[in-house]
């Protein structure tokens, strides 16, 4: 890993950060992180609670101004052009963005409108999405009545509706059964194969193994970054879980005091 700058040139990267920093008063939440994510990559962004992941993601998605350093997402500077960034990314949070009282179709139409798609684009993409998910029969069902796993798949697909260059997923698979969790990851692979960059956080360490590369944040810094195989070799560990425990364990008390 180069100390100077990210290993991927800025023009080619989907996400690119150099010395990205955010402070809250005297607290340094994100401390000079430097890394880049290639286009079409599935990038796992790991870290213990309180390590600075959420703050970093808020900066990378143009929601929070950095205190220092630079970051570009989908080719735009997050500090200079946050609105351009927001137009070119998708975001799926742990809380559902979909409206429980609207049907599947109504939700899709609403979000399509928010992202400025034409009626025709919405109709075409909705048909393709429902077919891909096998949701045709549920199109007129209220979202609140869908099982959790279905909602998550729908939420992910809605986040991709405007064909963003990068999609940010914040613990997308919490609480679902093991079969549905894997189906969700197959949607992630499909999106990445279509060229969408996937930036994902998770507490499931087996899911970290599904990523092309993962970074592990510890106390505001990126303590490790590489392919799962590289990290396991680097730390002589059998699994990413073991790598994570070794890196993150010593700072638990520091992060909380």
């Amino acid at each position, binding site marked *: 890993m180069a100390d100077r700058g990210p290993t991927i040139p800025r023009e080619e990267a989907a996400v690119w950060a150099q010395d990205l920093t955010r402070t809250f008063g005297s607290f340094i939440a994100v401390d000079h992180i430097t890394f880049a994510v290639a286009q079409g990559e599935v990038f796992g962004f790991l*870290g*213990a*609670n*309180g390590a600075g992941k959420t703050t970093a993601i808020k900066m990378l998605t143009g929601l929070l101004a950095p205190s220092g350093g630079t970051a570009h997402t989908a080719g735009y500077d997050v500090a200079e052009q946050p609105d351009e960034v927001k137009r070119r990314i998708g975001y799926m949070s*742990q809380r559902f963005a979909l409206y429980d009282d609207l049907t599947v179709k109504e939700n899709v139409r609403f979000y399509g409108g928010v992202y400025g798609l034409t009626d025709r684009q919405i109709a075409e993409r909705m048909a393709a999405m429902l077919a891909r998910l096998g949701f045709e029969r549920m199109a007129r069902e209220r979202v609140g009545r869908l*099982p*959790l*796993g279905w909602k998550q798949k729908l939420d992910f697909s809605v986040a991709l509706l405007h064909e963003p260059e990068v999609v940010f997923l914040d*613990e997308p698979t*919490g*609480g*679902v*059964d*093991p*079969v*549905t969790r*894997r189906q969700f*990851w*197959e949607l992630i*692979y*499909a999106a990445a*194969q279509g060229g969408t960059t996937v930036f994902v956080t998770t*507490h*499931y*360490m*087996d899911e970290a*193994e*599904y990523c092309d590369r993962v970074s592990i944040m510890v106390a505001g810094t990126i303590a490790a970054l590489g392919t*799962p*195989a590289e990290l396991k070799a680097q730390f002589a560990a059998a*699994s*990413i*879980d073991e790598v*994570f*425990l070794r890196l*993150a*364990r010593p700072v*638990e008390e520091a*992060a*909380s*005091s």
Partner: protein
Amino acid sequence: MTDAPASVQVNGLVKRYDEAVALDGVSLAVEPGELFGVIGPDGAGKSTLFRILVTVILPDAGAASVDGLDVVDDYLEIRRRVGYMPGRFSLYPDLTVRENLEFFASVFGTSVEAEYDVIAPIYSQIEPFDDRRAGALSGGMKQKLALSCALVHRPRVLILDEPTTGVDAVSRAEFWDMLGELKRGGLTTLVSTPYMDEAARCDRIALLQTGRLLRAPDTPEAVARSFRAPLVRVRATGERAALLGTLRALDGVARAEVFGEWVHVTGAGEDAGALALRMQRALEGQGWSEVVAEPVAPSVEDVFMALMSDPDPTAEVNHG
């Protein structure tokens, strides 16, 4: 204690919310001193089961007892005997660590001093932060405080609803270490989790899905061993989605699912060694490189996934 055969007894428990069935005839028994895990995803019925046991809601059918007491008839006495940690952080964020603890102690007519020995193994870890508001604690420390509060009245049975959900891997590991310590002290604990890998930390587990047990409760080792079909793990260089597609299209492959860096392939009608060899040759024949295919011991998660599509008929229980 000698006249109580089980600490928690559940027989044919049914609970409906409007037309949705949350529990559809669940039966299980937790032995005294056992660390018993209820493993299942959101919506499986874990919280409903636990709420009935801690007497917060009533069952529609079936019966349950805790520490020998009926959850309907003896609900007041049960509340004195169980420690309950609900899924959501339920402490007072504006009170300090110490104030929360003293509050819960006083509700049960006792004091932190009188019960110090029982909470010490956990509380001592957060005691240096006594004056901090609970809302300002890290996730791991909130858990320790919540567990201390659930223990402060010396419960005979501890019931923990998804204590590790949304918690990072480090705090999860620490939390299970604490449960192990409480178990050594003789406490009976019933704990739920959506994380299949946590099954290994329990004495016995029940697999719950859409309100039903997928099979009879057993040790995690016995549950894992109950996987009957040949199982092989496979990896190869290249796109994982393409690898899954290739494997699923091969003859005699009942299922192919990602497991960490591997794909687990379930076969039928041949032994695992033969299946592994066949997968190896088939992938290499299709141009995949660095192929590794080898028999693998099934995990609880393999069993859960197999049972989701093909439930064990012996898990059927009479709807009382």
